[in-house]
């Protein structure tokens, strides 16, 4: 004889609904918690890893830098001499003046905004196969000369673009949020300036909340050399 199955009562259905809703709510809250935790972890990981990368790169450049030739919040130019004591003529002003474009002596660092509104720190160097071996520039304290040279070389496709760190944002300073990541320095006089630094931030959105980590890095120019022209110009 086949046993007849009875239907659920209203109370049973209600209890089951309540229990299911509670479990679903707990699971959703748990997932949301994990997602927000992952967002925070992503932000912190980016801040740790990328700022360490920028710091090591900046430290390496400043270790080799003789002088900063042009300084602006968006772009700086570092002069890394290629000549050795043997090839420089040891004390010859002419050799000291010459900046060989084919010898990787000029390194521009620039913050560039990407299409997704984030910023990338780019290093620009001269492609040595695109310039004549004898092509050079003579040292000058005029920053606009170096800006013009950058534009000329960039338009001619003679600069190599190497991203150092991407996904950067404008830092939040005590005076308000800056317009963009920026370079900082000791003094704008390149004959006196002995340090280069950067300020940037990492930003992540978590619902309506904005998570932000601001970073400021600074590096001293370890082997700063004041050029003879600096003394002549009174700097």
């Amino acid at each position, binding site marked *: 004889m086949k*046993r007849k199955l009875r239907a659920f009562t209203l109370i049973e259905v209600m209890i089951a609904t309540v229990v299911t809703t509670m479990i679903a709510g707990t699971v959703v809250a748990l997932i949301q918690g994990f997602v927000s*935790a992952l967002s925070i*972890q992503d932000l912190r990981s980016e801040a740790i890893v990328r700022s360490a990368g920028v710091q090591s790169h900046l430290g390496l450049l400043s270790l080799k830098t003789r002088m900063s030739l042009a300084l602006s919040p968006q772009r700086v130019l570092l002069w890394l001499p290629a000549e050795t004591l043997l090839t420089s003529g040891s004390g010859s002003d002419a050799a000291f003046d010459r900046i060989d474009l084919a010898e990787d002596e000029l390194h521009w660092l620039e913050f560039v905004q990407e299409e997704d509104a984030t910023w990338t720190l780019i290093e620009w160097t001269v492609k040595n196969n695109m310039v004549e071996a004898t092509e050079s520039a003579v040292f000058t304290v005029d920053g606009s000369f170096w800006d013009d040279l950058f534009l000329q070389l960039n338009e001619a496709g003679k600069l190599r673009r190497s991203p150092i760190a991407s996904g950067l944002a404008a830092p939040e300073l005590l005076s308000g949020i800056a317009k963009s990541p920026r370079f900082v320095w*000791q003094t704008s006089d390149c004959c006196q300036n002995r340090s280069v630094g950067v300020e940037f931030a990492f930003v992540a959105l978590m619902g309506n909340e904005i998570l932000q980590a601001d970073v400021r*890095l600074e590096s*001293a120019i370890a082997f700063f*050399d004041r050029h003879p022209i600096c*003394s002549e110009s009174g700097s």
Partner: protein
Amino acid sequence: MLKRAEGMGMRRAMTLIECMVALVILTLSASIMVMAVQGGLAAQEEALSMTLAGTAAESRIAEYLSKSYPTIAVADITEAPGAIKTPTGEFFSYSYNKMSRRTIVTSANLTVPDFPGLIVQGYLFDVTVSDSWQGQARKLVSLQRFRPWTTEEEGDVTP
């Protein structure tokens, strides 16, 4: 009756004990996952604090290395939380707000073990960045750097 139900192709329902055991296992698993994530977050927060503290300490070291040598003097400076300044005199951003910084500058002589008798005169910079953790001061980073006196320090032009 149970055998008869199974024999008729019907599956038996879970008992209350089985249900409770399942719920306990689910709760324990969820708790372990939450604790693991929380532990990871706490460790990462500390790592980020140490990274930022390192940049604040390095900033002070860079400031002293950038100074003209004759302007450096022996000092012991403590900056309170929220009051640490950049070399250009601005306050550090909010991310550094809980950190304090102590800078000790001492006149020191550097000796090189492989060169007996060689003594290099200079300054030793000792920078410590701390924050507060559960009501107690916690040292995050401590950096030391020596700046030697060189003949170039007195000349205006090199080489």
